[in-house]
């Protein structure tokens, strides 16, 4: 049976994996989720950069996010790798970073109540609230609790006791449970995205089209492999190819239903000069009663 001092020591040491995992994950999420600059447009930047970077001028936002991510990686690595003599410096540094972060989040909340904390890049879009602030405070305490531990970074991991493992796991579970990012991701996963607002890359539509019987049936008529026009309305994407029918130039328009692995496809051949519909193959399935998604704008 361990004494209270040993248990306390194990609890303090168990903060290391928690703090390091948080720092590495936060840095990784910032670097991965920050999309590349498209045009340098202020319009573009303002809609994608969450967090305290908003307190800076437009041109400093991206460098600031990269700098913070770099700092998080360096501090987490120092916590793990620095030898006994200098390990405390890294623990103090981590405490200062989290404490400063807490104050910055409070300032962000005052100035931009609708902005997310940006702690995990664009995953953190939920407006800064008590959960984000509480997490920041807790990590400040966790970092400072490691101050004065006899064993440096990796050594504590190697000598993990059951108490150490249990405390570290419990804290990680708690951090995940209170993370606003996790609730946001779960909510968006649970929400079924209607097909009219789902993002569907054009290439996916073309691949799906090329695997259909309607495509194979019309392929011999085509005079070009590349679509001459392609557009989308709600749940249908229209793809137009040039073709020849009975020696007259024409166009084939395919309507591909989005959101299905084996999409419903309809096709019609339209005379290029007159606009007359030259052939409309029978639909492979009887037409469904006009539902909400079948009504097209026009």
């Amino acid at each position, binding site marked *: 049976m361990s004494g209270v001092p040993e248990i306390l020591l194990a609890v303090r040491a168990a903060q290391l994996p928690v703090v390091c995992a948080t720092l590495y994950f936060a840095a990784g999420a910032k670097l991965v989720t920050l999309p590349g600059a498209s045009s340098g*447009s*202020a319009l573009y930047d*303002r809609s*994608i950069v969450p967090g305290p970077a908003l307190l800076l*001028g437009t041109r400093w936002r991206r460098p600031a996010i990269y700098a913070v991510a770099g700092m998080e990686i360096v501090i987490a690595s120092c916590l793990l790798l620095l030898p006994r003599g200098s390990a405390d410096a890294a623990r103090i540094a981590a405490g200062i970073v989290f404490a400063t972060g807490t104050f910055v989040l409070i300032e962000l909340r005052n100035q931009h109540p609708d902005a997310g904390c940006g702690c995990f890049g664009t995953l953190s879009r939920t407006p800064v609230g008590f959960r984000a602030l509480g997490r920041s405070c807790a990590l400040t305490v966790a970092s400072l609790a490691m101050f004065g531990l006899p064993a440096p970074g990796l050594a504590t991991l190697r000598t993990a006791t059951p108490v150490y493992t249990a405390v570290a796991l419990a804290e990680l579970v708690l951090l995940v449970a209170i993370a606003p990012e996790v609730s946001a991701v779960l909510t968006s996963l649970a929400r079924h995205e209607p097909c009219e607002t789902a993002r569907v890359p054009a290439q996916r539509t073309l691949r799906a089209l090329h695997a259909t019987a309607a495509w194979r049936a019309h392929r011999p008529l085509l005079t070009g492999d590349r679509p001459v026009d392609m557009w989308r309305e709600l749940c249908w994407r*229209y793809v137009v190819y040039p073709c020849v029918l009975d020696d007259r130039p024409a166009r084939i328009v395919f*309507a591909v239903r989005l959101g299905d692995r084996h999409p419903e496809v309809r096709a*019609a051949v339209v005379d290029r000069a007159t606009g007359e519909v030259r052939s409309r193959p029978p639909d492979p399935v009887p037409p469904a009663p006009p539902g909400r998604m079948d009504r*097209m704008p*026009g």
Partner: protein
Amino acid sequence: MRQGVHADRRMLRAAVLGAPGGPDAHDATAPAYHVVRGIVADASPYVLALETAAGRTNLTLAPDTGVWRGEDTDSTALRIGDDAVARLPAGSPVPDRIWAAFGRVTGVITAIDGDRTGARLEVDTGPPGVRPLLIPHRYADRIAVRHPRLRPGYLIDVIGAYTDRSGVLHGVRPATSQPPGPGDPGEPAGTGSAARGLVRQGGVTWYETTPGDDAHGLAYPAIDPATEAGAACDSAGRRPYLPYLSIGSEPGVRNDCTGLAARLPVLACAATAPLFNDRCLRCGTSPRGRLAELTPAAFVALGGELDDGCFNATVTVG
């Protein structure tokens, strides 16, 4: 060109899926307007000559014809070369209201400087780029009431007039209240389950098009990012708050204040609309979110007032 794309896609769509149903263009119970847009070729107190796409049109002016040219005025303020929109009530040969030399700048402030004429701003209005805006000293207070932070990174939406020949818009009145921060405006209304579906309510605004362009159409905030204009319109990975459409689609727009409705083709991307999660207060309080930006001719034809900036609307995308 755009009209060509529009007609072509409508024809191909009808060929493959059949012609769509839907409400008629106009609500039979409401009076409709006829709109003429052109460049002022000649103006007298009694006759206004506009150079339109179809040729010269002469309009008879009545003593009570209202004219807006940066402020409410009369026909003596009209200048040759002004871009003008005249609104004629159905069956009347006489316009009841004319807007001249009007303009609007909507976007994110990227720079601000001042000189003796006023505050000179540069505003990122989305593709194709940055536009200049002058806020003369005499209108600065009026604009500051609803746009208190004229600083880079903040949003601005100002209606004004090209009152000199410099080509720079002189802002004279705010079109909305400035959002409080330069940050992400948050998930716009329309993402909640109550606002799902193909019929949405919110505000509809207007956007500046080429002087004299009398096209009836709209700019839409959610153009398919996989094709054409959508790449520029894609608001950087945000979830769209409206269903995806393309250039040439024809959503129905109903002015909830006048009851006038029309199906209008999508002509462009409304890059700045998603940034304004505001309400229109033209008649009652609309739900949040800008559903579309209309061309000046279409906006006026549905009963909108260009100097007001918006009307409460119902947009039907399907």
